[in-house]
């Protein structure tokens, strides 16, 4: 089973996203900020990371930049999921190594569509 690390400081968002990700066939782990997420990644690198931007302790962009310098840290596919929706910020996230980007508010259809674009769905095409 593929693993997804869900990083968001909102418990409500984590709860909603976890359910969607589990429906997509992922085993889900949660972290509430970038530093906690780094600790997870150092223990066991996930296949996918769904990443909020604005969080206490360490934000999503700083986490992503740090992750990419870690051993094996270039492996996980990273999908941002944030209220940041300015094109300049989106470009910044892509330049730092994100492969897709979800603007909040989102729903199950959007998350599924974005995962399909990033090639992250087990049954490609069937779900699109």
């Amino acid at each position: 089973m593929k693993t997804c690390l869900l990083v968001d400081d909102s418990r409500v968002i984590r709860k909603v996203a976890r359910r969607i990700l589990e429906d997509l066939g992922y085993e889900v782990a949660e972290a509430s900020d970038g530093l906690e997420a780094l600790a997870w990644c150092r223990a066991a690198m996930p296949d996918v990371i769904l990443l909020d931007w604005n969080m206490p302790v360490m934000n999503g962009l700083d986490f992503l930049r740090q992750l990419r310098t870690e051993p094996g840290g270039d492996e996980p596919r990273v999908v941002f999921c944030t209220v940041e929706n300015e094109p300049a910020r989106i470009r910044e996230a892509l330049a730092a190594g994100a492969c897709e980007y979800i603007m909040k508010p989102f729903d199950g259809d959007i998350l599924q569509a974005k995962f399909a674009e990033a090639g992250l769905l087990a049954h490609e095409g069937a779900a699109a």
Partner: protein
Amino acid sequence: MTPEDVQLIVALCKQRAGLKIDPARTYLIESRLGPLARREAYGSVAELITGLRARREEPLIWALVEAMTSSETAFFRDRTPFQQFRDEILPTLSRMRGPEPIRIWSAGCSTGQEAYSLAMIAEAGQGLEPGVRIEIYGSDISERALEKAQAGVYNPFEVQRGLPIQLLVDHFDKVEDTWRLSPRIRQRVRWRRINLAADLSAVGRFDVIFCRNVLCDLDEAVRPRVLEGLAAALPADGFLVLGVEETPLGLTDAYRPITGREGLFARNPAYRVAA
């Protein structure tokens, strides 16, 4: 709405646009006609129908028929047909056509996402001969849908269903809470109002016709004629792209399936277009 109201709506949709509306789906009828009733200053859909009976005005009848069409669409809907277009169909045509323009038609384009998806593929030019000319046309029966298509402005939900983020930042400008396609992509598409159930003999020639998830909303009796009208617009080496699970087979001899390519059909060389 009375059963007679529903029957009138169903009959008008079939007669004017070949649309198949299930009279049992009163909720669907209410939800599609509600906005029209409000625009026309009627208190309810039932009052709109009463007004329609009294006035019998063509513009109001057409507004009703157009409002009953499905506007469901998405950028790169179902993905695979667009990959086939990008990787196989367009490169092949660009070699064969030379300086002649390649003409693509998004038939039943609704609010334009399909036509613009094709335009973004054309813009990228992957695997295409230098100097290739690609003309993209979008048509729909609904004037309102075409107005939105032409404006090229979409909300955050619409740009997140099927559109890769890279294409969003490459081709869209953020305008307040919406996303507006760049003039460069908008200028690649020309828009026309076309009723597919009417005579298609004057539409012109198209090398590829996307007509996805349109037939399924048409009355069974109308489908063969629409498919044959589209076939008459295709050259012998042209392609028809239908929705997943849609097929012309059993309805007309005008096409043959392409093995291993779901939803993709070529003109049948044995089929002769009626004069």
